[in-house]
């Protein structure tokens, strides 16, 4: 492998390890994250310069670790004031800068990454910034990639990440688990961020299919990391993992070659990834331990039924029951709409129409799409006018083109029916 291929690959796997260990060493206070970023970036820069000239070392990872360690020591020496005043506060306490050990053992790498996840996924910084920082530090994404994922420019992302780091610095956030309760209370916000990161990829409006998949995979990787660690391997973590596996299993089937979405009932089920469905089943079973029934459990349950190729009335009833429970835990317009769709499958469109009309979600284009769907075949004229209202409210081109297809289908059907005049 040439250094041109090796460095990006090592960047993906080692960047987050080195930066987490260093962040953990310095602590997020006193610009620790920025110092850690600088040292880690410098290390990789040196690798690309040196390896290009002298060839790849025998053990590239060990080389990176050694360079990172030396750079850290140099940094501490150069900033004598910093080291004199601050070293006392460092994790490795009281020692002189020369004797500070940068511990890049597998255990410390693991612990440091875990702590970084909990430090970053913190509700004191906005959700978008949490995702951005997670992508930068925990996933080794470039600023340009993050900007693309959020459909914005590098400047905005740089500012957003800077503000987030400032906030972590001033609030002196440094997560050290002391009790089981700490893990439990903070795990909720970590899972919320991973859930958002996954959804960012799954429902993102960017057409770059490759990038979207990357975001989902990173969310799954971080989630898996929590499962691998005994302190964080809780049923709720497994529930979120199951949910992600089931959703990810349809990745190939739900987007066509030009990046447009394909609706669930029109997907080629042969493209569903059986391996991920099996994994989803495994994590769903793991999540069933204990008494907690979280929204992730219910959503995983719904996703499980959606991943089942069997069509029977019980399937939709199970989905409806899970939506009923989900709404009692947390109301959201999209859950209310999905619940009404499931209701139509179980109790028929007439019943669903009566309940849909009570939802009062007149700002939401999905609301009109749902009514359009429910009136299709019962009253195609009404269906057409609802789909037209949906089209007016739809925001993305993808949504508009999907609705366009629906409308032309319905209009074709209407025009092909024999018309009866009053005299007949």
């Amino acid at each position, binding site marked *: 492998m040439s250094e041109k291929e090796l460095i990006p690959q090592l960047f993906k796997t080692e960047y987050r390890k080195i930066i987490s260990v260093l962040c953990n060493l310095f602590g997020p206070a006193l610009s620790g994250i920025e110092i850690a970023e600088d040292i880690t970036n410098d290390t990789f820069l040196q690798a690309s310069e040196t390896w290009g000239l002298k060839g790849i070392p025998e053990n590239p990872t060990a080389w990176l670790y050694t360079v990172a360690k030396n750079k850290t020591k140099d940094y501490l020496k150069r900033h004598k004031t910093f080291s004199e005043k601050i070293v006392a506060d460092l994790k490795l306490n009281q020692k002189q800068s020369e004797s500070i050990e940068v511990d890049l053992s597998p255990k410390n790498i693991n612990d440091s990454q875990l702590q970084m996840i909990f430090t970053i996924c913190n509700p004191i910084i906005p959700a978008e910034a949490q995702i951005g920082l997670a992508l930068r530090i925990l996933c080794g994404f470039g600023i340009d990639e993050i900007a693309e994922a959020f459909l914005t420019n590098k400047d905005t992302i740089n500012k957003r990440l800077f503000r987030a780091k400032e906030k972590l610095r001033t609030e002196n956030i440094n997560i050290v688990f002391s009790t089981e309760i700490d893990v439990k209370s903070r795990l909720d916000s970590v899972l919320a961020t991973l859930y958002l990161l996954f959804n960012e990829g799954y429902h993102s409006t960017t057409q770059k299919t490759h990038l979207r998949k990357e975001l989902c995979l990173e969310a799954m990787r971080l989630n898996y990391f929590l499962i691998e660690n005994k302190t964080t391997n809780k049923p709720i973590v497994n529930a979120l993992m199951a949910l992600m596996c089931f959703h990810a299993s349809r990745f190939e089937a739900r987007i066509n070659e030009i990046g447009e979405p394909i609706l669930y009932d029109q997907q080629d089920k042969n493209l569903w990834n059986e391996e991920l469905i099996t994994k989803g089943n495994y994590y769903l079973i793991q999540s069933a331990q204990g008494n907690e029934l979280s929204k992730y459990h219910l959503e995983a349950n719904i996703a499980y039924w959606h991943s089942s190729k069997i069509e029977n009335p019980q399937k939709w009833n199970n989905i*409806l029951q899970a939506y009923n429970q989900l709404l009692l835990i947390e109301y959201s317009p999209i859950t209310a709409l999905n619940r009404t769709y499931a209701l139509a499958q179980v109790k028929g469109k007439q019943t669903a129409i009566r*309940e849909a009309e009570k939802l009062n979600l007149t700002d939401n284009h999905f609301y009109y799409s749902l009514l359009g769907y429910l009136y299709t075949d019962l009253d195609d004229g009404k269906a057409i006018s609802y789909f037209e209202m949906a089209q007016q409210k739809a925001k993305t081109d993808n949504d508009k083109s999907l609705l366009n297809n629906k409308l032309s289908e319905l209009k074709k059907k209407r025009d092909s029916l024999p018309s009866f005049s009053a005299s007949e």
Partner: protein
Amino acid sequence: MKEFMMIFSSEINESFGPSPEQMQSNIQQWMDWFGGIAAQGKIVSANRLSFEGKTLKPNHVIADGPYAEVKEIIGGYVIVKATNLDEAMKLAEGCPILIHGGHVEVRSIIPMNG
């Protein structure tokens, strides 16, 4: 939006012994009905009441069971949001307790600090 409490009561039926299938379908009727209100974002909180309970009376008299000397038992309650009593009554429509001979009492809640 004001809050209203719906209280579900039915007559005590000593010979009440539903089969597991009946229980299941009963639970499902309730969940479908709750789900319909929750889908409108109007549930504040909901609780079922278990049969375990006692009644405290004056002079430290404790009676067994929550339903001593009454013909009806409160099976549960739910707090909903609605603009007025009429709207809250509309939400109560279709409540499964009506099928089983019980009734729903809808009461407006007055906050203690209000």
